[in-house]
């Protein structure tokens, strides 16, 4: 008699962070449905896991505009649109690139050495509604392969957007677009392959359970390494190439709308539940641990930064609370599926404190990392990756070897450190080279006049806020003298042919 088992519990579990198996099941890396002697073929899709991963994907998508608001609120009035746009259009650029080629290179079957995927899945060929993965392995827990792709797409989208905070208020839009496209393919895609793909050299899992795993076992549940360390270090390179904003250090550059900063932080926090808990690949106990850890670390870090800003800065800062929450979210990312809630409080505390002092240091050495990407994502990401090596407990993830130093597995700290150093070095060097090259070819920075007038008007021909009274359009034809060259950026009319 055939058995009905709509939810085959032995689908290989693999997602942002990978698990060798559900809970001690021996079947890994093969699309087997054999459950204790009973053969089950019906419906390989688990609707519960699919429901959660659909939701999680949507949550993560919302993070990118959320980031735009977080960043946009921190900039000056005249640059808010340009800043938000850098996040928003990244959804466009990477959203297209990823389905066309990015996913195939990042998660497609390895082209050797665990460095990058191949072109087998270009245009999402073969990535369908059935569960799937490379060489017979399966990504996610009984979810369509296409859904794993979508979830990963949201990660690929937000990562380059994170970097934009480093060069806010001074980047030209055109070169920025090109940078985002190149960086996404040349930096994000390989690093994601190393860390997240079954067959990546830093990933803890092998596609084939019989062959030994290649490379190291860096634990990175939801992208501390591939996303935050990666973006944070790229931001450092960007700060060095772009240089300081005009007036930095002498003119105050206060956030133009702190309520927008909080809105952004709130959307990020909300979306991060999808980011971390979705990385379990389904609606599992590990996903629940990840959600709880995410909230605990963010709460603790928000509190920590607030109190430190009170102690050292005189008053409890609202921007500090928002920045602290983000720092906590960053730091708990790699650890969220591996640690206990009490340990995530420790991670949050560390994140709040370390990032706060990192940002103070940044201000003291007058490094113009405009919106503190290095201090929050770089430092928070490194701390999170190390903390995972400290606190990971196999009991949380059900993965036998996912233990950290405090659980007697000192080797893990080594694997984590190598991961940080390699990803950091690769990201720094390649980002630096891309930006320098772009600067030589096209010039990545706006002119001084444009910087003074603001990027909204000069890059996008728009202003964010238009007060009550408008202006009247000039009579057709230039009755007034042409604008001087210096201000042409903000004033030149498009050529007549195009204008109407």
């Amino acid at each position, binding site marked *: 008699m055939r058995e009905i088992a709509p939810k085959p519990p032995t689908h290989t579990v693999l997602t942002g962070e990978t698990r060798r198996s559900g809970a001690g099941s021996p079947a890994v890396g093969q699309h087997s449905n054999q459950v204790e002697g009973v053969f089950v073929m019906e419906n390989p899709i688990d609707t519960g896991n699919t429901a959660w991963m659909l939701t999680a994907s949507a949550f993560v998508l919302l993070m990118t505009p959320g980031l735009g608001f977080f960043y946009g609120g921190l900039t000056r009035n005249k640059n808010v649109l340009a800043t938000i746009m850098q996040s928003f259009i990244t959804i466009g650029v990477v959203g297209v690139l990823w389905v066309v080629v990015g996913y195939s290179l990042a998660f497609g079957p390895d082209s050797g050495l665990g460095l990058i995927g191949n072109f087998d899945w270009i245009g999402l060929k073969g990535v369908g509604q059935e569960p799937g993965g490379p060489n017979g392995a399966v990504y996610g827990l009984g979810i369509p392969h296409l859904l794993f792709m979508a979830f990963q797409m949201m990660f690929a989208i937000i990562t380059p957007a994170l970097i934009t905070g480093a060069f806010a208020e001074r980047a030209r839009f055109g070169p920025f677009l090109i940078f985002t496209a190149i960086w996404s393919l040349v930096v994000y895609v390989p690093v994601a392959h190393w860390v997240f793909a079954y067959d990546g050299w830093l990933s803890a899992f092998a596609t084939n359970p019989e062959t030994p795993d290649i490379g190291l076992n860096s634990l990175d549940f939801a992208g501390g390494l591939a996303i935050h360390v990666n973006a944070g270090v790229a931001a450092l390179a960007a700060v060095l190439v772009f240089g300081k904003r005009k007036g930095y250090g002498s003119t*105050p550059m*206060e956030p133009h709308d702190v309520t927008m900063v909080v809105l952004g932080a709130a959307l990020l926090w909300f979306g991060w539940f999808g980011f971390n808990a979705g990385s379990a690949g389904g609606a599992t106990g590990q996903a629940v641990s990840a959600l709880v850890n995410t909230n605990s670390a963010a709460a603790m870090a928000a509190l920590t930064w607030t109190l430190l*800003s009170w102690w*050292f*800065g*005189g*008053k409890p*800062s609202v*921007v*500090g609370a928002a*920045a602290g929450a983000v720092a906590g979210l960053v730091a708990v990312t790699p650890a969220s599926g591996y640690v206990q809630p009490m340990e995530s409080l420790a991670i949050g505390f560390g994140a709040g404190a370390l990032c*706060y002092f990192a*940002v*103070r240091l*940044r*201000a*003291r050495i007058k490094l113009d990392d405009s919106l*503190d990407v290095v201090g929050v994502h770089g430092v928070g990401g490194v701390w999170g990756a190390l903390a995972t090596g400290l606190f990971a407990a196999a009991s949380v993830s059900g993965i036998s070897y996912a233990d950290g130093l405090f659980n007697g597995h000192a080797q893990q700290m080594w694997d984590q450190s190598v991961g940080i150093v390699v990803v950091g070095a690769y990201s720094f060097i390649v980002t630096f080279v891309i930006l320098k090259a772009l600067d030589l070819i096209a010039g990545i920075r706006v002119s001084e006049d444009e910087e003074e007038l603001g990027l909204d008007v000069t890059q996008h021909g728009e202003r964010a806020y238009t007060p009550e009274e408008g202006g009247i359009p000039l009579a057709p034809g230039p009755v007034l003298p042409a604008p001087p060259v210096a201000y042409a950026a903000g004033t030149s009319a498009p050529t007549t042919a195009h204008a109407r």
Partner: protein
Amino acid sequence: MKKVEAIIRPEKLNDVKQALDDLGFHGMNFIQVTGRGAQRGIVHQGRGGETVTVDMLPKVKVEVVVPDLAVERVIEAIVREARTGNIGDGKIFIIPVEEAVRVRTGERGEVAV
């Protein structure tokens, strides 16, 4: 006629308005300005713990055009109401007005204000 331009603390706006009302001057304008003076600015904190001393503070400029004879009474009322005794209370400037016109009727002079 004179234009009395009083730069005052925003918190004092209602009191000043009331006092002018009591004197019979209902018409006036308010303009949000950013003032700077002996009063030290407000210290904001930056993300990096640096103090951002904004040396300009929000003030309100009250503009009221009054007949020459009323100037002293108006000054006196404003000083009385807007005063806290602390630095930053503001200034009053008296500026000559050569003509006033009521747009609605075209009336000129003191009857127009």
